[in-house]
């Protein structure tokens, strides 16, 4: 990992051809033979030109591909995405292309995944990926939407769940070392601007600064691990109103969470969390 991290250039925007890309056949050989996930070729795939991408995709139609999405060689290296699980609405295997009504092969899932991840990571316009993966605006928008829904459906229960007793204990220990026993994390709200807010909802969603948006409430620990997220409160609300309607607060005040029996000792007095 570390070796790879140093080896890649800072910027891999589509317009800038990276000079030291390996030739595509060599990448294919490594991709075919290596058993453990060899991240190099796939990351190079994202670095190389659209032509290279096409070569790789066309040769590997039938393989279950594991793509590694990497932004500026540093961000999502951790995210492995198996394109064979790409949500597809056809009856055929989801790792292959769909066939439309006229019998033409549609875009490969890998193309769509790359475009969707570029959409997520760069926040670029949906028709911007056309230069890179040659997909139309509507295809990219649809693919992004599907991918987002897919991520939430499949990983929400793994990565965005409430902490259980063990994790809670560890988190509280770490914060207690820093001087706050009994503290589970830091909570804050921020506004996420909403460009397409309908006019009829502008009154509720207009924040105090005049822009329309929703409030995002998150709780995280020192590693920036998010263990509570509450999105979608109208931007008009201030932090305390958002907190009052967040599921976390409702659970705490109704006695559903945190788990019973968590104790903390402050200044010689031992308390139990409510």
């Amino acid at each position, binding site marked *: 990992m570390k070796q790879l991290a140093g080896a890649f250039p800072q910027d891999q925007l589509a317009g800038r051809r990276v000079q030291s890309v390996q030739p595509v056949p060599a990448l294919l050989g490594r991709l075919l033979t290596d058993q453990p996930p060899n991240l190099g070729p796939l990351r190079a795939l994202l670095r190389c030109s659209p032509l290279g991408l096409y070569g790789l995709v066309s040769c590997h139609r039938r393989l279950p591909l594991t793509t590694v999405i990497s932004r500026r060689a540093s961000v*999502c290296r951790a995210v492995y995405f198996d394109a064979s699980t790409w949500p597809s609405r056809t009856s055929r295997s989801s790792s292959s292309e769909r066939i439309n009504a006229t019998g033409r092969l549609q875009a490969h899932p890998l193309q769509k995944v790359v475009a969707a991840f570029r959409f997520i990571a760069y926040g670029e316009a949906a028709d911007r990926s056309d230069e890179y993966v040659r997909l139309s605006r509507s295809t990219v928008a649809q693919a992004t939407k599907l991918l987002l829904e897919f991520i939430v459906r499949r990983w929400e229960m793994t*990565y965005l769940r409430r902490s259980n007793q063990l994790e809670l204990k560890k988190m509280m*220990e770490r914060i207690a070392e820093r*001087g706050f026993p009994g503290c589970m994390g830091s909570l804050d709200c921020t506004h*996420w601007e909403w460009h*397409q807010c309908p006019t009829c909802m502008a009154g509720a969603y207009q924040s105090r600064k005049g822009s329309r948006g929703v409030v995002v409430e998150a709780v995280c620990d020192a590693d920036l691990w998010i263990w509570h997220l509450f999105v979608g409160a109208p931007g008009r609300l201030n932090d305390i109103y958002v907190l009052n309607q967040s599921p976390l607060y409702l*659970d705490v005040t109704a006695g559903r969470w945190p788990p019973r029996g968590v104790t903390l000792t402050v200044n010689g007095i031992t308390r139990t969390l409510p």
Partner: protein
Amino acid sequence: MPMTDEAKTFNRLQEAIRKDVERLFGVLTKRFHIALHPGRYCSVKQLITTHKAVSNLHNMCVEARRDGFLSRRRGAGGTNDGEGAGNDDEGPAGAAAAGTGGPDGNDGGADDGGAAAAGGPVPGGGGAAGPADTVGAANPLLQLNAVGQPPAGGMVAIFDAWGETRNRAEHEQLRADLTAHVWSDRSELLAPYVVKSSSMVTQRLFFPPLARFFLSLTS
């Protein structure tokens, strides 16, 4: 407004801990620019989905990398050591499971959790074991304390919990205790956040005004 030295110390430390979540929003938006730019979807539901997905991806990144974080390495001698080692084991094995690509990935992840027999509850059914899935039998899913409808302890239980969490006197007491706690350990707790003493501060502390005056004359 913190007036006493104790309260000021407490406030300073609380600022330092509260900073985490401020960092979170910065890091999240830098990682995924879709959360930085104004949302371009037409429904709140889609906005929620988007932000949840982004946070999911962010958590995956954190999970894969947190062994290298400075705060973890700094505290590696303490209680975090075992935890860090556990995550370290899980990372590559999870990666290998993802590399096999097939349905075998699930089994690999479960075995790695050190729970070969039980094979803990995996959320989301069959293929749901993520590349770095911490959920195993050793670390079970949380069961929320069930509050049925109508609640088992009656509404009294809920009102009790409500009163307990909203108890103002208890809140004041806890804050006073925390303040005292922080104050007693202040040199140790605040050490990471104190700027190294500059020459000016040193002079103020160690030289009386008259001596400083003479020093300024000589220099």
